[in-house]
């Protein structure tokens, strides 16, 4: 098991390097010179030079070969590639503040919305899947399956809009959009986005977990347990749930990018000042340093989350570490 974990950790290194190369290829090689984009193509070379110096664009892209030849190892690795690789992001050209500072200020707001969405959604999906497994082929099963397919087909944006219209404009239960100051004020504003987001994301997961639970429920070990006198309830919660955890883990990891998209769309529609909105604004402002930093940072975080899940697999099912 220890060997598996070490091997798995080592496997992450090429992936992170690949992510870095991909980001770098997009934002440094393919992207037109930010100095020209920002200042116009008729700007004087001197102005461009000072712009590049200000945002660290004058540094060599990969390696400073002249410094490497003269033996200054430290200076040689002071390139844009290695700075980004080690999370030393530059300054945002729009806000004129360090990128990391901007991102860290906004990220908690996004997490405050997406965290609860994630937990509530997963819990509800599992509960429904476990519950309807005993109704297979009868009307509750049919209704849930139908609702999930319907939910997967409706555009998510339309669902958010309907939620705003129904609960905000019609019933006046929640404010339509906005963000407050202080914990209790924010809860009031966060409730509706969380509600519609959970509702919109239920479909696919519920359908998947239903299939998985049914598969386990009809396997031999459950039949054995039932014939020994284990109650249906215990068989579900003790035997089935434990074996369902692996597909649940897999599905959870694949669902995480969905949360990110949720953050982008929700924050725009509900005017929440979070990191998703920051990213969209940065794209409009041609703020390449910020877009690149957010892309790279979130991709690395995602890599690490995948790594953590893979390690969790071994706890849930020790057979995994045999591979």
């Amino acid at each position, binding site marked *: 098991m220890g060997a598996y974990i070490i091997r798995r950790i080592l496997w992450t290194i090429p992936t992170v390097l690949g992510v870095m190369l991909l980001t770098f290829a997009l934002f440094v090689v393919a992207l037109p010179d930010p100095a020209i984009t920002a200042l116009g*193509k008729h700007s004087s070379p001197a102005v461009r030079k000072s712009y590049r110096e200000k945002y660290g664009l004058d540094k060599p892209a990969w390696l400073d070969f002249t410094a490497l030849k003269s033996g200054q190892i430290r200076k040689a690795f002071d390139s844009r590639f290695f700075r980004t690789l080690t999370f030393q992001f530059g300054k945002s050209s729009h806000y004129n503040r360090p990128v990391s500072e901007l991102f860290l200020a906004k990220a908690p707001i996004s997490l405050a919305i997406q965290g609860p969405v994630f937990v509530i959604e997963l819990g509800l999906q599992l509960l429904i899947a476990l519950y309807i497994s005993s109704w297979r082929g009868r009307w509750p099963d049919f209704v849930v399956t139908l609702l999930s397919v319907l939910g997967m087909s409706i*555009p998510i944006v*339309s669902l958010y809009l309907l939620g705003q219209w129904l609960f905000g404009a019609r019933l006046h239960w929640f404010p339509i959009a906005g963000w407050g100051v202080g914990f209790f004020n924010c809860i009031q504003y966060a409730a509706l986005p969380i509600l519609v987001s959970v509702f919109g994301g239920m479909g696919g997961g519920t359908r998947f977990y239903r299939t998985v639970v049914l598969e386990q429920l009809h396997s031999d070990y459950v039949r054995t347990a039932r014939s020994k006198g284990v109650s249906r309830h215990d068989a579900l919660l003790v035997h089935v749930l434990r074996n369902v955890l692996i597909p649940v883990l897999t599905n959870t990891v694949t669902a995480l990018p969905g949360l*990110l998209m949720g953050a982008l*769309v929700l924050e*725009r529609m509900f005017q929440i000042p979070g990191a998703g909105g920051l990213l*969209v604004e940065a794209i409009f402002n041609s703020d390449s340093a910020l877009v690149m930093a957010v*892309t790279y940072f979130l991709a690395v975080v*995602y890599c690490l989350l995948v790594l953590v899940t893979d390690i969790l697999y071994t706890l849930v099912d020790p057979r995994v570490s045999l591979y």
Partner: protein
Amino acid sequence: MDAPAKNTALDDPIGRSRFGELMLRLYRRPAAFISAIIVALYVIVGLLTFLPVFDRHADLDGSDQLKKDGLIWQIVGKEYAPPSFVSSAAAPPEDPELPPPTGAAASAERVPHGGPIDLLLGTDILGRSVFWHVIYGTRVALTIAVIASALSLTIGTVLGVLAGYFGGIVDAIIIWVVNTVSSVPWILLTLAIIFVLRASFQVAKSDAQDAPQGTTKAAPAGDRDLEAVILAMGLTSWVGLCRLVRGEVLSIRERDYVVAARAMGLDTPRILVRHILPNITHLIIITFSLGAVDFVQAEVVLTLLGLGISAKPSWGRMIDDAKLELLRGVWWQFAAATIAIFVLCLALNLLGDFLRDVLDPRLRGAD
């Protein structure tokens, strides 16, 4: 009496082509059959908009601003006219901030001159037909789905087959690329590619402006948006299929008929195209039908974020417009686009499920 006879006919694999059997099974499953008809209808509508007869309503190239304003955005009625099948009592309240146009000139200008079809689903903020917007939205949605799918399916299949068939270092490199691309969350990579493409297009545009008149012709903004969206989606969505194909090819490679083909001395391209490819087409078909749903939905999300379609009629734009309209009681533009997307995606989902069940039951799980 009738049912058993049908079943034996279905179970008998002899004397019926693969396609014929698929059609028979489709006919036997009403939900999938209706879905297939609905998808076909959307495709027909999308194709019909290319006919010159329809140019009265739209010049989608938008190369000529006047033409565009006059045709595509033809004003057919007064602003925010509700659908013609709704009674006039349900008309929305006048916007208090905008004084209604007064005087003979204004009313003469505002005379609705659209036919009953133009006004069928009401009008938008400027008095343009919602019905035609939905119809042309079909064209844009299908264009995105088809071209982005073609791009992503090609990349996914080629890389998957190469990785699975050759193995070794080729496999290792392709797997590394797949892992890398799938490590960047899908929406993030899409946004990053759109960001880069937009910046490049901007540079190209300013170069074209500086160039002497007539030497270069810049593509219209609408095409640029569409290009960026399609490219970004196509380049990010191939990893799933690539993994599936690789796994399948790994097992096909060891089968007797492939070994026999190799032993007979057939060259590798021929084995790949004639012996391997036909046996993974089912994966491509399933991925296409389920992936199209994602493309249609993603257009709406990207357009809402302001990074999708901006100069062509699309369903995403209609829903984006509805952000403010819906709260003021103007529901028809929102409803029309939502229903258009919903019906298409539902049909594609059901059809995709059917294809998966029939073509590759193993992908389904214990349903």
